[in-house]
């Protein structure tokens, strides 16, 4: 018996397996819902809120909410677009994101979303927090100025025993993602490559790599974020 259920996104009839998260179900139906903390194959956390949609009048994160039969989801309404844009602006002002000199520029998901939502000047004042750059690892640089605490590195960069090389430190507004001092020493070239790739911003930079991808060949130079999902 099929587990397919029917639901609507912006009045478009969609189908997906029961239990599928909305963001994935939307993707399968050719609809792009932006994400930052979420990535395929990793248990969703719903921390960045960029994937916010409206379901039965309630704002919910689409990466943590499974589709239900007959569900009606609003994703492209102006109100929701503006909420997402304001979240992106908040992320920008709460860190120190200087795209002009960032190696991830052109391949950065946060920057790409800024372009997608045509963010010109954030509506919130810049926080300019004092944050540090940890360059003590021989393989990577962890720039806290750019970290958005999405947890993608914690969830995906693990040793053979499944231990995360990255971890949270401190609590509340002082929380930061750091490379574990001991496990970090076991980081391989491949892990460093993957950590830089999986970081949605320029917070994890692999050493000795710097700007090796020419302008014109970067991830979002020719295709805006999400454009490959749309049918």
């Amino acid at each position: 018996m099929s587990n397919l259920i029917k639901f609507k996104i912006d009045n478009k009839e969609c189908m997906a397996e029961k239990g599928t998260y909305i963001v994935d179900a939307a993707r399968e139906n050719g609809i792009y819902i932006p994400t930052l903390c979420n990535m395929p194959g990793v248990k969703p956390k719903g921390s960045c809120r960029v994937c916010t949609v409206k379901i039965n009048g309630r704002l919910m994160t689409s990466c943590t909410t499974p589709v239900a039969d007959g569900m009606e989801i609003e994703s492209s309404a102006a109100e929701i677009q503006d909420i997402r844009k304001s979240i992106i602006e908040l992320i920008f002002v709460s860190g120190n994101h200087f795209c002009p000199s960032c190696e991830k520029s052109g391949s950065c998901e946060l920057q790409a979303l800024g372009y997608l939502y045509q963010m010109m000047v954030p509506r919130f004042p810049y926080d300019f927090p004092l944050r540090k750059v940890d360059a003590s690892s021989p393989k990577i640089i962890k720039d806290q100025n750019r970290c958005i605490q999405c947890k993608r590195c914690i969830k995906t960069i693990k040793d053979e025993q499944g231990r995360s090389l990255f971890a949270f430190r401190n609590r509340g507004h002082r929380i930061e993602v750091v490379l574990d001092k001991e496990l970090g020493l076991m980081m391989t070239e491949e892990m460093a490559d993957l950590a830089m790739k999986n970081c949605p911003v320029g917070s994890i930079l692999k050493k000795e790599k710097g700007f090796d991808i020419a302008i014109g060949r970067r991830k979002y130079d020719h295709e805006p974020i999400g454009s490959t999902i749309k049918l």
Partner: protein
Amino acid sequence: MSQKITIEPVTRVEGHGKVTIHMDDKGQITQSRLHIVEFRGFERFVQGRPYWEAPVLVQRLCGICPVSHHLAAAKALDVIVGAGTGDGLTPTGEKMRRLMHYGQFFQSHALHFFHLSSPDFLFGVDGDPAIRNIIGVALTYPDLAVQGVMMRKFGQEIIRATAGKKIHGTGAIPGGINKNLSIEERDEFLKGADPLNADKMIEWAQGALDFFKNYYAANKDFVDNFAQFPSNHMSLVRSDGALDLYHGRLRAVDAEGKKILHDIDYQEYTNYIEEEVRSWSYMKFPYLKEYGKENGWYRVGPLARLNTVDFIPTPLAQREFEIYKALTNGKPNNHCLHTHYARLIETLHAAEMIRELLNDPDLLGNDLVIKGTKQKEGVGLIEAPRGTLFHHYRINDDDQIEMANLIVSTTHNNEPMNRSVNFVAKSVMTGKDIITEGMMNSVEVAIRAYDPCLSCATHALGKMPLEITLVDKDNNIIDRKKSH
């Protein structure tokens, strides 16, 4: 009554500056100064950043010649990643960088001549300021204006093909370059429809030079005598004495042509050059240590380069170089306005170099980067359009920049610019009660000859204009004029 004249802002220069001229009771000029009043502090805020960010970050000093900063920083980092001191890159890496640099030279010199300086020559130094500008040039001499715009465009397209963007690209990386040139890009520059091809650019560069030579022939006394004073001159030269804008050894000559800095390895520049700070300007005053503050100052830029080099390694520019050198019987040229002449010879040389490089198959190669044993410190020098540019970085064990020192072309020219201002102020303002717009522009013409980039020189961000103030001996402001 003694007075102080202020010109603020100085116009048609890159950056923000002002001039003060002090006049005593008898109308004699007692002191003239060019003050650079902006400050930014790049040397400080690159500290702690990963070293490979420097070429991309520091070039944000400027939107006119960011390529020079980009390449000088990359050359310093070549040393740090063990890729040699300027001549150790792969052929593709070095030649792509050279193409980027000559494209930059071509567009920057074209910008200066056509947009900033040609109004003075076309309409006269004391011409109507309402038309003595690039708009006036476009309305009165449209063909010339179009040439200026298209020459800039050609140079900018070369930069885009090599650096990735026309302004603030990322092409040069420590140890090499991040892309080669495609056959399509090369053919477009060599065989593109007129006027955007290398042959046309050489023709137009020759035309601009001929224009200036005609102007010179008709205004010889003015061009020869305007702010003419002896000085030392410094630039990079190739090991065989040729003009080389990308790499070489550091040479300086005195006003008579005697070598006073003997083709030194610029990694050791701190043994030879020191910088002095003066309280009234954010721009430092460099000088040759051996000759002291009083006698060790020097000029850099087009005039200085053609005084230090023995020859130019492209045929058309070499022919013009010989004519130019004959004007001073082979001795160094100390005529301030001849800087324009020298700049246009360099423009022709840059166009010839671009064509020569485009015909070199090495540009199409795939061996882009080379690295060796990591070093802690590196110095990168390059001849920027405005003169010799120094970038010096030291890194810590974690690959972070812990020290940066930049000596920008305009900084080297600080003392000569001040002397030029003083020279012109004395000759046009002595004994005058009223300061006319024409007199003010004369002072600006002297500054403009150096094509100064005041933002770069103080690593500062600011507005472009210049102000002149007239004060009495008690420092009371008598008159102040601004040009916009």
